[in-house]
């Protein structure tokens, strides 16, 4: 296998707040290969946005990347080493802030955010912003950059690009603004685009148009994507491989087909069951008990155990890391962090089921007995 475009190992990002240390991203590892769309899925608070911003070193105080290694095309975006006195310091080959700004952000790795209104400046014309971006990043003359900007606007499906070049962001609809951001992301022909919930705020027909556009553009430019979303429907539609996050950790990592058909983590399973389906009439949807706990004091052992219907005594003690549980037909690894799999040898089978899990498996879902404050 060729070297991945991006390799993330044990990335850990924490926020130091007065209430305590928030372990937003806790030792996650994944890879992105050339030309693939990798999903980063989870509910709000799972740490998926912090994880993706960490890749560009765009985590702001009080947040900080405290451990791990990020390698992009052989260059070290983040890496620590132990010094003689035992403390950690940045490795010398780690890219400087200047290098990140000039060479990586925008040029190599671009970002598309959820809310296009916040990413566009309301007092400049759309065309002007795009032109300036191209002018600065690609060193083109003003006139050539303008032509390039119009070409990009047409490429992403903005009707009448010459006319709309002079318009302001508020004159564009949500879908059109998102197209402008895609144009901006593509303008420097980056190798990797991080898309953070880019279609969440859009209507389904517009979302469909944008997903189509991404497909076409990916085919044309061969760009890799990290697609951050909470919507498993979108994941099924466009992702090649998927990482499911829960409370700062990756709990399952699999090719998309295996994730849906050979689901190996109870959280993924529960997420899939709790979704109403557009293509089937489901009389009762199985909800997940409770809410995601705080990342300041995550549960012991497996972080999902208080909500898991398979939880046993062992799940409270042993903290599972994502391990290989299967290999798909085309040789891709399927990882899951659940003690039910044999590779963990945790004594799961022998330990006693937890009380709530027994109740849950009896499909006692609406309101668990003894109610612990609803969700």
């Amino acid at each position: 296998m060729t070297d991945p475009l991006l390799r993330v190992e044990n990335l850990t990002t924490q926020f130091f707040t007065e209430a305590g240390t928030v372990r937003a991203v806790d030792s996650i590892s994944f890879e992105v290969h050339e030309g693939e769309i990798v999903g980063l899925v989870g509910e709000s608070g799972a740490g998926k946005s912090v994880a993706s911003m960490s890749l560009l070193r765009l985590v702001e105080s009080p947040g900080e990347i405290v451990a791990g290694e990020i390698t992009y095309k052989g260059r070290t975006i983040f890496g620590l080493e132990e010094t003689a006195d035992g403390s950690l310091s940045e490795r010398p080959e780690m890219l400087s802030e200047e290098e990140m700004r000039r060479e990586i952000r925008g040029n190599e790795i671009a970002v598309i955010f959820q809310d296009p209104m916040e990413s566009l400046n309301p007092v400049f014309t759309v065309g002007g912003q795009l032109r300036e971006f191209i002018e600065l990043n690609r060193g083109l003359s003003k006139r050539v950059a303008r032509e390039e900007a119009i070409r990009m606007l047409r490429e992403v499906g903005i009707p009448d690009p010459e006319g709309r070049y002079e318009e302001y962001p508020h004159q564009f609809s949500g879908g059109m603004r998102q197209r402008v951001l895609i144009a901006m992301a593509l303008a420097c022909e980056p190798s990797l685009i991080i898309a953070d919930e880019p279609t969440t705020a859009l209507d389904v027909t517009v979302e469909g148009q944008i997903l189509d556009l991404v497909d076409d553009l990916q085919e044309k430019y061969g760009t890799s994507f990290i697609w951050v979303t909470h919507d498993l429907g979108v994941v099924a539609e466009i992702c090649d491989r998927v990482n499911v996050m829960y409370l700062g950790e990756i709990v399952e990592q699999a090719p998309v087909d295996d994730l849906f058909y050979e689901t190996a983590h109870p959280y993924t399973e529960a997420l899939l069951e709790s979704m109403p389906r557009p293509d089937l009439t489901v009389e009762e949807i199985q909800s997940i008990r409770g809410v995601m706990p705080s990342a300041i004091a995550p549960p012991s052992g497996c972080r999902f155990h208080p909500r898991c219907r398979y939880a046993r005594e062992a799940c409270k003690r042993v903290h599972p890391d994502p391990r290989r549980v299967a290999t798909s037909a085309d040789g891709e690894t399927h990882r899951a962090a659940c003690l039910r799999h044999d590779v963990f040898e945790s004594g799961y089978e022998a330990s006693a089921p937890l009380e709530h899990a027994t109740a849950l498996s009896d499909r006692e879902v609406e309101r668990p007995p003894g109610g612990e404050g609803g969700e």
Partner: protein
Amino acid sequence: MSSFGETPTGSDSSTAERDSETLLEVEGLKKHFTTGSGLLSGLRVDPGSFPPVRREHERVRAVDDVSFSIARGETLGLVGESGCGKSTLGRTVLRLLEPTAGTIRFDGEDLASLGGEALRRKRAEMGMIFQDPHASLNPRMTVGTIVEEPMVAHGMLDGEGREARAKSLLEDVGLEAHHYHRYPHEFSGGQRQRVNLARALSVDPDFVVCDEPVSALDVSVQAQVLNTMARLQAEFGLTYLFIAHDLSVIRHIADRVAVMYLGTVVELAEKEELFENPQHPYTQALLESIPVPDPRESGTRGVLEGEVPSPVDPPSGCRFRTRCPVLIAPEGYGFGDAEWEATRGFVRAVKRRTFEPAPAAEVRERFFPEGVPDGEAGELVETALSLVSAAELEGLEEDARTARWHEASELLLESFAEESICARERPHYEVDPVYGDGEHLAACHRHR
């Protein structure tokens, strides 16, 4: 003008469940907003006419001639994209907004004509749940006060009785009685939505309008709240008007579904029928665009071009025609199917200016690989082709170029699109259902 629901009660008696009476019946409901207010807004100066100054306000036709009925104990799902008027409809039905025209018969009485005290008393039978669980609860009131407020307004029970009822309601919606003394900020989004539910139910209403009640929630919490709502409906015998943009949620909770587009209902049918046998091209496009959580299901998506037109000046006839992938060919030109499809594609491309100026032959080859249509239609296409060909546009200023495009687009639209039956008549047809035997209405001229 036709409208939905001209045959409301008669066909409703078909299924056992809806043998029960109609609780709400809306007919020809309109809600228009005028843009701008104030002394000088809407002032137009036109020196060519007399008097040279006029006042005119643009009217936003948010809800335009909508009719439907809901039976007691039923859930009617109202689905559409942002800006289609579904929330306005929900609010107008409760008379939180003053209807511009039409009747709203609730339990036999016309709400639209009620006023003052009578309306206020009637409101005790209706409730509403809003979308944003963070904005819809007063942060300075305890949950108890919030839930009791509607009871106080309607003079229900005494203080002790209200407290007891509020506590029991909190338990009904899946919270705890001791949450009575807490404040909204102590709760998660899902729990707040439960408080909203308790408040809506406090005056024991028959009818609840739910405006996107779960769209701000995470999937797992959304499922919890949906299940609770379904249980409460059975327990309290509630009737829901459930507004959502998410078709999956609608499919889960609704009995019948109405699809809205640009202020009108374009399709209305029983759930299974609507999802399995959609008859309006807009409903079909909506259903095809939803990403299905199944990687083996390769969806066709993004089937719709363009964007929703402005409700200030909606298209004549069928509102969906400007984006419709199956717009009916205008009569009189003798279009064949393939010819019309090519022409329609060309008309929209010119209108949206989606191709760069090129020699006419090149454009012709791209849009009409089989050759342009014969006769008059062909001549019109040729005229448009030459207007926007590279040779014609060469050396012109941007303004002049835009004028050319505009001219070509106007010519094509007036000759073809505006001549279609879709542009000339408002559609309203009843089709035979395949699933179940409920009424199925589809506002599409293909069913003529």
